[in-house]
């Protein structure tokens, strides 16, 4: 049911954890299934230097979170705002239809963190 890439990112998620001194954090919870992501950002000159996450959710949610962090590291925050859930799902070689909503978590959590960053919320 899951692609190799999903299974890989689920078993060995990249960039899991918290950050001692983040420039911003963002938390986002799916109203649909209760899955929740917390994103920690380190931003320098408008570029995402470091990113960490913690996710509560199914394999699709965890893999999407991991993939998202891989995709946006090194992006400007403007570029990162263009990232969509579909792009994350695609990068994972797709998700089962009934799991598509789980990928929403990743981009939405990221955007929340960026918006907090812009608003100066840590």
């Amino acid at each position, binding site marked *: 049911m899951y692609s190799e890439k999903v*299974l890989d990112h*689920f*078993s060995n998620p990249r960039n*899991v954890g918290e950050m001692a001194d983040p420039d911003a954090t963002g*938390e986002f919870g799916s109203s649909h*299934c*209760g899955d929740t992501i*917390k994103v920690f950002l380190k931003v320098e000159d408008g570029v995402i230097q470091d990113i960490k996450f913690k996710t*509560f959710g199914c394999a699709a949610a965890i893999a999407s979170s991991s993939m998202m962090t891989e995709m946006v590291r090194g992006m400007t925050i403007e570029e990162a705002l263009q990232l969509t859930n579909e792009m994350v799902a695609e990068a994972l070689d797709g998700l089962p239809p009934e799991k598509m909503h789980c990928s929403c978590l990743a981009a939405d959590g990221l955007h929340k963190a960026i918006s907090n960053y812009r608003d100066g919320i840590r």
Partner: protein
Amino acid sequence: MRRIYLDNNATTAVRPEVLEGMLPFFTEAFGNPSSLHWAGRQASPAIEQARREVAALINAKEEEIVFTSCGSEGDNLALKGTVEALQSRGNHIITTAVEHPAVLDTCRFLEKKGVEVTYLPVDREGLLDLDRLERAITSRTILISVMWANNETGVLFPIREIGALARKHQVRFFTDAVQAAGRVPVDVEEAQVDLLSLSGHKIGAPKGVGILYIRKGNPLAPLIHGGHQERRRRAGTHNVAGIVGLGIACRKAAEELETVPTRVTVLRDRLQNGIVSLIPEIKVNGALGLRLPNTLNLCFAGIEGEALLLRLDMEGIAASSGSACTSGSLGMSHVLEAMQVNPLLGQSSVRFSLGRNTTSEDIDRVLEVLPPSVQKLRDMSPFWKAGSRCCAVCLSQ
């Protein structure tokens, strides 16, 4: 990789002796049991033999057994068939909030057709209040439908007491015994049950066959109209091989009813105690002393059940999150919700259901794999802090 199957409440492998007994009925003795010629006569005695074996398992009479295609069909037939047959007498059904979807969904359908349904709540341990059940009975009540054992938690309901209540108030009593029959003693006379459903694939028979027990004197409208099979209670050419397999599986289950449950209980308890001692902040769901021997349902604070399932699956361990039927859908199971489990905690539930083939080594392996798997997921969970208030709150509920 060694594969460990701990999802016997979802389905079981066909027992070798069952498959062996079935095989002739695909190719050599392939006749339609309704046919009068030699090919029919090869099949019809086998059906009646199976009927006797199934009847013996639940202490019923042969003519009270109607073969169906699955547990869900039996549940639908019991409910819809009773509503149809007794519509002049009343239109109220009493059931519980924790029934299988085959009962709940049918009740919801019947509600749309004007039937009144009372869904009895359960307490935090998953138990019913019998007084409340009795008080729910009205002069319009035609059926009480309470499962013998819950598929998610394994909680056993007081069927004998409910049977006595139903008899006292002259209300029909149906029990979905899909998880109970063949696993714990089931006696329709002792429990005063009028209708009982059973599904072959939960006890080593193949998928695609089940029965509805219909006590004499409790006529039902058929769900499937047509030919004269099953004394016009269920039309359709008999699934001969499946029925033969069900007969053998019931005979075997009856033979092993003294030994297997005892052995399985020991293994289940070892798994439970191991988990409790190795993993902090977990919750065992369902009244400890009142469960099926094989079922263990737990919540692991801070993580999501399906993620844990997948991790176990990667190690070759098959378990489930809620029932197999609902584990494809998301959120908390209706059973844990009815037990008032905290919604976040409820999402972390996993069910291990052992089988007659489960070994001590299987349990060792789960106890080896489970703690680091849980830890790994907790490490990435925003909700996990060992000893944190969140989890403490969850567990205290």
